[in-house]
């Protein structure tokens, strides 16, 4: 009796272990920590699709060294706490050498010290906070730092548009504050003046108090750092209260389909900055494949996540087939990446693991995004 019970327990434990390994022995594994539910899910689902597409293509072409590549994704909900749980779950179950994520800067910054300690490579497709540059040697990103964007936008608004006094309205989280800081630092150093910087909570829906406050101030324009939901709110509510100041969005959120749909006419004339549209064969092929797989054009960060997976896979491929993959050689491979032709543009990592890309200034005209100019690069 005792023996059979022991055997049953052992069998159960064995099953659990096999289940816990997540996939067949011998697969190459990439982890992903993305927000799949919660307010930021709209920014997490496209990159998860982009990453899956890359994995699918790699496997269809024969995998890596004849072995399959597997993507294991965990939900971060765009909250640092949940992001850390997602990271732990991945590292304790499938032991990935590299992880694609996070999307929200606050999550990436929360995971970064752990990844750095464990020697796991982290490649963010979307986090733009300047602090991530200093997060460690294992932390990379295929989206430019806000510092690059904030500096470029401040210079453009000061030199080309001729603004001298602006107010800033920003979402009060890591990403929003990072954007605000890099803009105002550069704008002030050029001789401009930031008359007010008003923050609002990520889940806020009524921004009229902030907008009304800005309305009463002496400034020429409002620089907005926002997510898609709040972008609609800013556009609509600034018209409702009769703000009468041009809005300059330091975010790609304006291009989100939900913004153009929900804001309607209120989006007209909005000017914004984002990493310049990539071109070339890889880009075209990616767009076609994405449309075929998901029935729509690639949304925000899908191309970046696709590139992150491709780069990590290339690192795996560069290693001897038999060697157990760890984070360190992947890191060394990524440090050497120069002028890689990706779906999100040409990728070169600088010494901080940051990508350097040109920026585009765009504008909504007749309900459609129109390129105004390209700067930097």
């Amino acid at each position: 009796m005792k023996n059979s019970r022991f055997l049953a327990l052992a069998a159960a434990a064995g099953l659990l272990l096999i289940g816990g390994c997540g996939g067949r022995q011998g697969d190459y594994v990439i982890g992903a920590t993305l927000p799949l539910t919660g307010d930021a899910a709209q920014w997490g689902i496209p990159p998860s699709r982009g990453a899956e597409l890359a994995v699918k293509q790699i496997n269809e072409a024969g995998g890596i060294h004849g072995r399959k590549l597997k993507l294991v994704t965990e939900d971060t909900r765009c909250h640092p706490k949940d992001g850390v749980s997602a990271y732990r779950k991945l590292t304790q179950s499938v032991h990935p050498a590299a992880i694609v994520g996070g999307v929200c800067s606050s999550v990436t910054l929360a995971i970064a010290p752990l990844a750095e300690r464990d020697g796991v490579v982290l490649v963010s497709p979307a986090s733009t906070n300047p602090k991530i540059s200093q997060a460690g040697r294992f932390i990379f990103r295929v989206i430019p730092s806000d510092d690059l964007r904030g500096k470029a936008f401040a210079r453009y608004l000061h030199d080309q548009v001729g603004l001298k006094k602006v107010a800033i309205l920003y979402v009060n989280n890591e990403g929003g504050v990072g954007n605000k800081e890099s803009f105002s630092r550069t704008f002030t150093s050029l001789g401009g003046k930031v008359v007010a910087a008003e923050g609002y909570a990520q889940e806020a829906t009524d921004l009229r108090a902030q907008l009304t406050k800005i309305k009463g101030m002496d400034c020429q324009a409002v620089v907005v750092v926002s997510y898609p939901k709040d972008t609609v709110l800013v556009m609509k509510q600034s018209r409702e209260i009769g703000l009468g100041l041009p809005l300059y969005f330091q975010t790609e959120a304006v291009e989100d389909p939900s913004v153009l749909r929900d804001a309607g006419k209120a989006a007209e004339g909005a000017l914004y900055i984002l990493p310049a549209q990539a071109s070339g064969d890889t880009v075209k092929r990616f767009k076609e494949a994405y449309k075929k797989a998901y029935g729509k054009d690639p949304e925000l960060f899908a191309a970046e996540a696709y590139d992150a997976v491709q780069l990590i896979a290339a690192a795996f491929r560069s290693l001897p087939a038999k060697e157990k993959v760890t984070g360190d050689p992947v890191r060394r491979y990524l440090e050497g990446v120069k002028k890689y032709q990706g779906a999100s543009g040409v990728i070169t990592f600088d010494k901080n693991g940051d990508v350097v890309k040109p920026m585009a200034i765009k504008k909504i005209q007749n309900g459609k995004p129109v390129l105004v100019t390209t700067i930097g690069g």
Partner: protein
Amino acid sequence: MLANTLVAAAGLFIVGAAFSVIYAATGVFHFGVGAALALGAYVAYLAAGILHIPLMGAIVLALAAASACGWALGRWLFLPLQRRRASSLIQMLASLGAYIVVQECIALFMGDEARSLLPGRQVSVVSLLGARLTSIQLGILAISILVAGGGWWIGRVSRVGLVFRAVSSDPTLARISGINPDRVALGCFAMGGLLGGVSGIMVGLDLVITPTMGLHALLLGVVATLIGGVGSLAGLLVASLVVAFLQQFGVLALSSEWLDVIVFLMLIVIMLWRPGGVMGLRLRRS
């Protein structure tokens, strides 16, 4: 600024009224209003945005759903627990559970992202005594005046109010006099659900709807109720104005990150100073 304050106060007032109706009748801090609020907003969204029912029809449908939600929470959650003599803490936790179920179901079926009841539409703006108001905000003001007037009339003049007060002051005596307290409680739940739905739709038309909208609106409404004093319509009205004023002008004076801090700090101060609320009765010693 003053116009913003009035509109915000009107919103608070209606949520507060929805909460008070249930609280006064049952003595339970009930989260059901939050559920009805979000449900109403999403039913309106589904009906108008997906099924393309004209907005007015969608609103009627949503209000029916919200009050049905209130009634159902009373019938299948409050009454069974009441019969087992559950403490008000248990009642509160159960209602929080019900609220979370509704919120997560909405999130699962509809997604978490914010949605607009009027996507892409530009709302007409009216200038009134130098203030700018959208037609929807004018509607909110009108409806809250209606609710205030109606609430006063029902509470003080009509027979319903008499029965209601009888039950809330002494259920046993009311039962002896031939009133069925359960039916009164269910009526209050339906009423609370209806008012919750009203405010959910108003928020949806004015701003956006999210699955978590219920709790945030409810908390602020509850703050207004507690500051004003439970059961006092006038107190609620004044408190709504004060809370809204603090929120709007707090942003002017301090930075906007302090908005919620100011409101809840005020709640704590008032509770320490007068636990029964500014206009409410002193707490009974029992």
